[in-house]
């Protein structure tokens, strides 16, 4: 659904741009292609990394992992799984909802969802290309730490 939105915005922008200045629009498209080519090697590496990660950690395995892990270790485990996987929300949320309905703790689910969104271990090659090793690793470490805090907070709110 959000992809459709993206196309609508890009399409509208492109239309307005062509209308105002076709030459400039061509430059924009040339820049777009160039930017894409610039990141292509990292894209392809990430693709292979994601494929292998998600083969080993498929939705079922993840569910088992998060569904059974309890206490602090369960939260940490759920965060770790969220950090190294790359799953779109429309797959992750229903799976998380099923886990919640099946009795998994809200804290664990929140840890998973939060680190899934904020932390991207497999996409690090792309992040490092633009932000450098230092900033990229720093951001991911901080985000991982914070997702644990977020989990405790969400777990508490849900339990109220």
């Amino acid at each position, binding site marked *: 659904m959000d992809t459709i939105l993206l196309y609508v915005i890009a399409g509208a922008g492109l239309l307005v741009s062509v209308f105002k200045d076709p030459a400039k629009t061509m430059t924009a498209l040339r820049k777009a292609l160039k930017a894409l080519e610039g990141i292509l090697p990292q894209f392809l590496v990430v693709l292979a990394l994601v494929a292998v990660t998600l083969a080993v950690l498929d939705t079922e395995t993840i569910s088992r992992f998060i569904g059974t892990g309890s206490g602090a270790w369960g939260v940490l485990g759920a965060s770790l799984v969220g950090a190294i996987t790359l799953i779109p929300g429309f797959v992750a949320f229903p799976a998380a909802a099923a886990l919640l309905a099946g009795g998994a703790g809200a804290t664990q689910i929140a840890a998973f969802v939060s680190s899934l*969104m904020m932390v991207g271990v497999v*996409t690090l090659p792309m992040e490092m290309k633009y*932000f450098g090793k230092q900033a990229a690793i720093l951001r991911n470490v901080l985000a991982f730490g914070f997702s644990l805090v977020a989990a405790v907070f969400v777990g508490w709110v849900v339990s109220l």
Partner: protein
Amino acid sequence: MKKLLKRYASVIIAVFAFVAFILLFPAWRGKALNSIIFQAKTMLLVIPPIFILLGLLDVWVPREKMIKYMGPDSGLKGPVLAFLLGSFAAGPLYGAFPFAAILMKKGAGFMNILIFIGAWSTTKIPMLLFEISALGPRFALSRLAIDIVGIIIIAFAIKATLPKKEVERLYAEAALID
């Protein structure tokens, strides 16, 4: 040619590693292939509009405007705008990085860049609506609230920890993007 080979060296290694993986672990073969096809489809679907928008941004938004609205001295305007830009974005987080690079090239402040990345990762509106319907408003909204706090804390922490030299280097690299 040599330059091209050097740039794609990591890709060649990754391809070999992937092939080795599916040959060595037949149990995961089907899943790995399915997942690489699924991810490739997602990327192919999401990439064109993001890069078109990035190209349009580069061409149409003058540097002075960007500095005025999102520069380091833009006051409260900058972070608010960065936050909205990230929240109305769509697509996986890796789409935010090339976009952020163009914002840097145009002179957006580093703090605003960090807020933009944070917002793109956790407060995307379309995803939030989906999260509410799947996990309930209490879960989704409390996660949203705490993650907004997190975005700001993380942005401050990175800005405080990262050496100034490194930030300058990142901006110099971004300036080279054509």
